[in-house]
């Protein structure tokens, strides 16, 4: 090569040589010196011009080469590309026998879906699937052998060899992640307007394969051949949607980390003997899954906690926040009693329980008399409400349920309290409020309540029950407050008073 370079620059060398020879003489006529100098300058200018052009051309060529390599990299597996690019001499990858774990997957009924999709839609659809799956292959370090339509072939163990167990485990974990990702893709496809939900099926087998370049001298394909390749492919075909079938040998490497179903015996095409296959279920423990999810659709809660990154304090904060939100949803914040919505829901529950078990059910509205006449701020008034709520709660029994009905009215549900006992029971509550002094803005005050009560009677709606109890309260209020009035809730007896 050096002679080639030398002769490429032979003209330039001649100029340099003659300049050097000239300088060896101490006595040079000026004319000769100038002539030689002109020649040297001309040669130098030419060289500079060449160097400039060559640099630009060479940079351009390098850029072109890099673009080409980048593009080419998309068509061969990452591992193979690295091997080809880093290999110093022209060594071709020689065929050799090695133990590999081989993976096959495809989309069930894809040909049917493909048959009624437009070409452009089909390629967009297929590429979104292959893109997602390929990212997972790269993540787990698999060698992507090829795509065949919607099918994907991957193997572990070459060019990079770690250990047979490691290859098998990574391969199965990759398959599990692919299956998980399919859920997200199905949602995405459904939103994009594809009707049929597509599901993948996968097959994995471990064993000795021949790996190397197969093909002609013009077009080589780096791939693998051997019985495990056929087995993985057959297991894939035998699997149902969302299933991962693995060979018994693969199972031998992974069973301490991954839970599988009881083994199946399969008759597979191309295999004379029966084949034992295992259906992969899930990973043991949560080693690789630090994300804890609570998805409660009824309550509309969707919490996702990543334990790999969350701090203890943050976790406590999230739990507290959840608790607070839950509490606020059903409680009145001043009194700590159930709010109107929650207590009315509870009343409906108690009504149906009373109906079912034929138990009595007393209901009362308890109104704070003259609350609006206290000329104080809202905060002070709320404090009065809270204190009266405390008195009522002390007066009722453990199984009675009290809630805040509106600004100055509480509602009390008394399971087991019948027609005969409600006036007496509700009056006891009235008295306990009357007898207790409360401190309002620094002043001791006596407050009173009016109580309207009724009993639930069969087939009465919640609305009718509330009408009855409101009518009773109105009656007690009209009598000047600090009073208990009870009426029956059934319509025909609406106006009959017990007191």
């Amino acid at each position, binding site marked *: 090569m050096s*002679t*080639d*370079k030398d*002769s*490429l*620059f*032979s*003209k330039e060398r001649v100029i340099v040589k003659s300049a050097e020879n000239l300088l060896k003489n101490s006595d040079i006529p000026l004319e000769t010196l100038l002539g030689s100098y002109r020649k040297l300058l001309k040669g130098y200018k*030419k060289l500079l*011009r*060449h160097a400039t*052009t*060559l640099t*630009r*051309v*060479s940079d*351009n*060529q390098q850029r*072109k080469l890099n673009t080409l390599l980048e593009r080419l990299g998309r068509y061969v597996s990452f591992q193979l590309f690295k091997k080809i690019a880093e290999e110093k001499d022209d060594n071709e990858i020689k065929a050799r026998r090695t133990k590999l774990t081989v993976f096959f997957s495809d989309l069930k009924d894809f040909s049917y879906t493909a048959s009624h999709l437009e070409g452009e839609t089909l390629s967009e659809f297929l590429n979104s699937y292959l893109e997602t799956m390929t990212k997972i292959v790269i993540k787990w370090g698999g060698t992507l052998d090829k795509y065949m339509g919607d099918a994907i072939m991957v193997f572990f163990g070459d060019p990079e060899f770690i250990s047979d167990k490691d290859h098998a485990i990574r391969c199965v974990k990759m398959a599990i992640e692919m299956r998980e990702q399919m859920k997200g893709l199905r949602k995405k496809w459904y939103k994009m307007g594809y009707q049929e939900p597509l599901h993948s099926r996968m097959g994995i087998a471990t064993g000795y394969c021949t790996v190397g370049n197969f093909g002609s001298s013009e077009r080589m394909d780096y791939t693998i051949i051997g019985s495990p390749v056929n087995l993985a492919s057959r297991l894939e075909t035998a699997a149902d949607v969302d299933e991962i079938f693995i060979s018994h040998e693969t199972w031998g490497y992974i069973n301490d980390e991954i839970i599988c179903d009881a083994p199946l015996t399969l008759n597979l095409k191309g295999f004379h003997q029966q084949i034992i296959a295992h259906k992969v279920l899930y990973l043991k423990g949560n080693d690789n899954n630090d994300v804890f999810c609570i998805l409660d659709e009824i309550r509309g809660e969707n919490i996702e906690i990543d334990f790999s990154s969350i701090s203890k304090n943050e976790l406590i904060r999230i739990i507290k926040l959840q608790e607070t939100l839950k509490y606020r949803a059903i409680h009145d914040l001043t009194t700590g009693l159930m709010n109107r919505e929650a207590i009315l829901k509870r009343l409906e529950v108690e009504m149906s329980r009373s109906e079912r078990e034929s138990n009595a059910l007393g209901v009362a509205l308890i109104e704070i008399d003259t609350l609006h006449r206290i000329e104080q701020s809202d905060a002070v008034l709320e404090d009065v409400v809270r204190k009266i709520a405390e008195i009522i709660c002390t007066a009722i029994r453990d199984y009675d349920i009290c809630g805040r009905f509106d600004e100055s009215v509480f509602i009390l549900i008394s399971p087991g309290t019948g027609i005969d006992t409600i006036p007496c029971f509700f009056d006891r509550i009235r008295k306990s409020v009357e007898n207790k002094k409360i401190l309002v803005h620094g002043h001791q005050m006596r407050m009173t309540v009016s109580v309207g009560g009724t009993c639930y009677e069969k087939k009465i709606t919640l609305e009718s029950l509330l009408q009855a109890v409101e009518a009773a309260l109105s009656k007690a209020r009209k009598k000047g407050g600090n009073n208990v009035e009870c009426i029956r809730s059934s319509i025909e007896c609406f106006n009959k008073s017990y007191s």
Partner: protein
Amino acid sequence: MENLIIEETKFSPSIVFDGEKHSLSITGKSYPENTSVFYAPVFSWLEDYIEKLDDNQEVGVNIELIYFNSSSSKVLLDFFDILDEAAEDGKSIAVNWIYEEDDEDSLEFGEEFKEDYESLTFNLVEKKPE
């Protein structure tokens, strides 16, 4: 004078220098194992040809290279230098740098070479698909 014809190989271009038709063509790839050895007959033919060339004779030089290495670029510069000097002496020489449609890289290479020459007619010719 005899025409110069060199067959194309995997690494070197086809050379067809026709002294009667005054058409000189270099076509193909150029990364020969020994660049100066490969192009030595090209230069000696060219120097003989130019020496005998009439001033008013129009000469067409067609260069159509899809790939060339750095040594070949240097050879091309020397080659164009000889043509440029001849043009300076009054010869009517036109270089046609032929590039494939949409091959921007090849067009850029042509532009780089073109910039260097003042006397020589240097045309960038887009090849129409056949």
